[in-house]
Every structure is written in C-alpha cells, then in structure tokens.
C-alpha cells in the first residue's frame, strides 16, 4: 500500500497537494483505486459493516447515516437501483464540492464505485450545476480515463461487476439542489419538486429506487475502507464523527475551503484558519451553512462548534457548509435584501406560499427603503415568513423563512433604526452641531 498521499492529515483533501492528481496515472501512483480493488476481493457485507461502523452520515442537509441508507437499499434485493451524486451546490457561499472535484475527480469516482459495488448498482449519474462547465469537463475526462483503465464499463477489473457513470450538466436553478427537483431535471422535465417521500427514494429516478448522495459523503468512503472505521471515528465527535469541508467567504482575511473534524469551533476556523476578520474589524454575524440557515450573531458564532447538534442548539444548522462572515460595518438591512433577492429569483413558482411569499417579503423590504421600517412592518414581515414554512413541496420556502426570520430576530432593532427618517435626523443633527 502506497502512502505518498497526505492520508494522515486529511480524509477528503488527502491528495490535493499532489500536482496533476486529476490524471488517473498520478492518482494511481499515489495509491488511488487501490482501496476499490481491495474491496472487490472482500465480501460486500463486510464493506457495508465498515461504513456503518464509521458513523459516516450524509453531508447533505438531512444528515442521515450513510450506513443505514445503504443497509435499507441492500435489504431490497433484486430491485433496480440508481445512484445520483448531487454536485448541484448552488447555495450562496458554498463552493467546497467544486474545490473537491476540480482537483481530484478520481477520488469521487472511487467512492462511487465502492458504493455501486456494495449496493449492486449498475448506473450512476453525477448531476453537476450548469455554472461548473469546466469542472464537468474535468470529470468527463476522468471518467473517460476510468473507462480506458477498466474501472468503469463491463467486467470491471476482471470481476462480474458492470457499472456506467455519466456526468449530467444542469442549466441553472437552485431548486435542483433539492432531491425531487434534481430527479425531475435529470428526467428531462422542468426542475420542479414532485413530492417529498421518505429517504431513500423508492419511486425516484424513472420510478427506480434512487440513492442520492453528496460528493463529500462518497469521497470519504475510500479513506474509511483504507484505514478502517476506528481511524475515521478518531476525527470529530461521538455523534458527528469524521471531517467535513467548509467553504468560507466574506469579511475574512483568507477565504477558501478547509477540511476540519466535525465539532471544530467556528472561532478557530474564522480566527486561525482564515486569519481573522479583515482590516482589524469586529465580527458581526455569520451564516454557518449558506444563507438557507438561520444567521448567527457574533456572540453565538464565537461559541459555536461546527457539528449538527451544537449548531441546532444555537438556533442554526450546518446546512451546505458555506460559511459567510460579516464584519461590523455590514448593515442587516443589506444582508436581508441580498437574501430576499436570492430566494425570489430562485423560487420555481410551483407552490404559492413560496412564489407569493418571497415576492411579498421583497416588496415589504423595498417599501422600507422609502418609508423606513417600523415594529408593525416587522410584525407583518414576520407573519408572512412564518406562514411560508412547512407547506411547500421543497425546502426552499422554508429555508427563506428560516433565514429572514433569524435576521429579523437578531437585528430587528437595527432594521428599525435603518430608516430614511433616522438617516435624515442623523444628518440634521450633524448639521446643527456644525
């Protein structure tokens, strides 16, 4: 077994320091596909047990145990299963999957192959967002190489295992991040959510049993199978084992992607890994998982750890892993506007609470620009947002409501101060002082 990759420090980014690792030869030279080949000699049940023992859970927002999902698929023997890797990360502030696959596409392919072999899957799709055309080409090239080296296709590595993998380029649309819209888009229909059903989707793509998994989840599998569940569990917490990628943007000195054990304090990520807030300013607020999750105030953010439970206790969620940092000079009024614009533009228009709700909230916010924001205005805003929750087919309306309600809750006072009259008063005061 080769140990040239940086296995001990990282799980997902263990090959990222190797120049040219996107090429299959170099990936193989550094130990790539070795784990898959060794898995082929093992019993699939043993591989499944190892994944279950690792405590790996889906890095998608639902956070369901990967082992349990795989188990439920294995139980349904002789059912045709389809695998979809969801690379449609379109949540603002999130670019970790892009960073993962553009440098090392073969790790994802190796993870997909192990999953496909254990679960008896014959066909897989990587749904990648339309904006990632270059990354789609990188994946396409990697898949071609994998076919040439008999890692994909028929009779893989001399075994009775056939698997085909296709890169499917989307054409824009945040709703495709949600499983049902993603499935309808892959079926060549408008990307609208069909309905919600228990996971895994028993009536998913083309009516088949469908496993939808994130690139991060699948890419962790080769490391787990190389070093075992025990080694993986040394990272992170008892309830949230392993590592996770976070993409950090906004008012920090160093933006980018970090891989850290779950449970890492957010303050460590911001102050150490990102070298703190720009220009010596103070922290104001943080979206810890894209703008679809409630915002954290500076006090809460600095006390938070990046794991599912702690963030829920703080009133937020881990979401997409896109951390957006705001410094003290950012106005809550602007943050609210940017968030509202996003959800208004990205609503697919199918469910009226989402279609109308996002529009009404934006109109109310626009009216505040002229008339200022009052307590009664905030109450109406809050009431509309709360009525958007839990009644639409996909989570977009719910996310919008959660996010804007948290901004109102944390910065309501500031929003009311941010009014045209207050600004006029402030300027008058300045002129009388002169």
């Amino acid at each position, binding site marked *: 077994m080769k140990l040239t990759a940086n296995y001990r420090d990282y799980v997902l980014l263990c090959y990222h320091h190797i120049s040219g690792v996107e090429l299959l030869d170099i990936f193989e030279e550094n130990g790539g596909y070795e784990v898959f080949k060794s898995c082929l000699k093992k019993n699939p049940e043993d591989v499944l047990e190892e994944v279950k023992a690792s405590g790996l859970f889906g890095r998608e927002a639902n956070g369901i145990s990967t082992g349990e999902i795989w188990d439920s698929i294995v139980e349904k023997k002789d059912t045709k299963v389809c695998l979809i890797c969801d690379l449609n990360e379109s*949540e603002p502030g999130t670019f970790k999957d892009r960073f993962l696959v553009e440098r090392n596409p073969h790790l994802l392919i190796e993870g997909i192959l192990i999953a496909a072999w254990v679960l008896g899957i014959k066909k897989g799709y990587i749904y990648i967002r339309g904006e990632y055309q270059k990354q789609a080409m990188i994946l396409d090239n990697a898949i071609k190489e994998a076919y040439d080296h008999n890692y994909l296709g028929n009779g893989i590595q001399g075994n009775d295992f056939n698997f085909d993998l296709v890169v499917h380029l989307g054409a824009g649309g945040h709703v495709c991040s949600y499983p049902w819209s993603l499935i309808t888009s892959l079926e*060549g229909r408008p990307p609208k959510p069909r309905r919600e059903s228990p996971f895994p989707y028993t009536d998913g793509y083309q009516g088949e049993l469908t496993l939808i998994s994130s690139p991060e989840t699948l890419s962790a599998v080769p490391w787990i199978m190389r070093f075992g569940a025990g080694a993986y569990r040394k990272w992170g917490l008892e309830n949230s084992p392993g590592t996770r990628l976070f993409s950090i943007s906004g008012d920090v000195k160093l933006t980018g992607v970090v891989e850290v054990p779950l449970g890492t304090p957010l303050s460590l990520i911001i102050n150490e890994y990102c070298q703190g807030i720009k220009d010596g300013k103070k922290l104001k607020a943080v979206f810890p998982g894209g*703008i679809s999750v409630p915002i954290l105030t500076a006090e809460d953010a600095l006390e938070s750890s990046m794991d599912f439970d702690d963030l829920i206790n703080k009133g937020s969620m881990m979401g997409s892993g896109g951390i*957006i940092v705001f410094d003290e000079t950012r106005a809550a009024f602007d943050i609210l506007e940017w968030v509202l614009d996003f959800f208004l533009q990205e609503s697919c228009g199918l469910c009226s609470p989402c279609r109308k709700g996002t529009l009404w909230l934006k109109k109310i916010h626009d009216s505040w620009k002229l008339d200022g924001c009052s307590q009664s205005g905030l109450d109406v805003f809050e009431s509309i947002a709360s009525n958007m929750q839990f009644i639409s087919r996909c989570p977009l309306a719910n996310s919008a409501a959660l996010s804007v309600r948290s901004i109102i809750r944390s910065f309501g006072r500031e929003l009311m101060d941010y009014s045209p009259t207050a600004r006029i008063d402030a300027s008058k005061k300045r002129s009388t002082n002169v």
Partner: protein
Amino acid sequence: MSDSFEFTAENQTSYNEIITRYESKYSALLPVLHLAQKQNGWISGPVIAHISNLMGIPGSKIKEVVTHHEMLYDKPIGRNVVRVCTSVTCSMFGARDTYRAILEKYDLLDLGTTKDGRVTVQKVQCLGACEMAPSMQVNDTNYGRLSTEKAIQKIEELA
C-alpha cells in the same frame, strides 16, 4: 435568422453518443439542448423542431424545459455571455454596483445584448466562486476580485 436547423456532422456524432448514455430519451434532452445551443447560440424554434423530430419529444415539452433553465436561452444572445454574480458574498464587495455600471455603459437591460451582438449580460445568483468575490463568468471562465473597471475591461477584451 435561419429558419432551419440541423446538427453539423460532428455534432450529430456527439448527439448519437449522448443518446446512448441514457436509458430514457427524455433524460438526454438537457445535454442535447446544450449541444444545440453551443452550435446555434440559442434555442430557436427551428432548433426545437429539429430536436423534437430527432428525439420524438413534443416541441412544447422541450420549450417548457428551455424556459425553466436560466442557462438555456429562448431568444438570440450575443457571441459572449457575461454572467455577473449578485449573490450575497459578491454583493458585499460591490457586485451590484458593477452590474449596474455594465448595464449603463452598454445601455442594456438584464439579459440584453449589445448592438454589435458581441456580449449578452446576465445577472445570476451565485456562481460558486465566492472565495474570489466579486466574481463574473465570461462564457465558461470565472474571473474574481473584480472592480467595476476591471470587469468592464474584461468585457471590452471580448471578440
């Protein structure tokens, strides 16, 4: 505007290959539309008619898919597409001012095309390049940390 459309010989070969990747012809629709848009620039009526004939999918179904995707265009666009990200992180660093300045300079509305057919400007939500905000995508290449001047300079450089 041409009133007929056919894939070039090379693209017809690509089409034949794309169809084999999917078990259902409907699933192949999006990649086929990408291919057609690459050749024709946009998804015109004749493009829809041709794809409808080739794939046996009703034209109305194809039109429905086109109008639901912001990266498929159902009206003529310029030779280059400039997508300006106006999502949260990019807006923090002046993306909206840049976007407005670009529209003003070229006297455009959103998704408008310059008179010489050189550039179409589109406002988008998140390009997934937040680490280098404010960012802009020109065709398939991302540019980051753009001031308004730099953004306009990039557009000026386009053929």
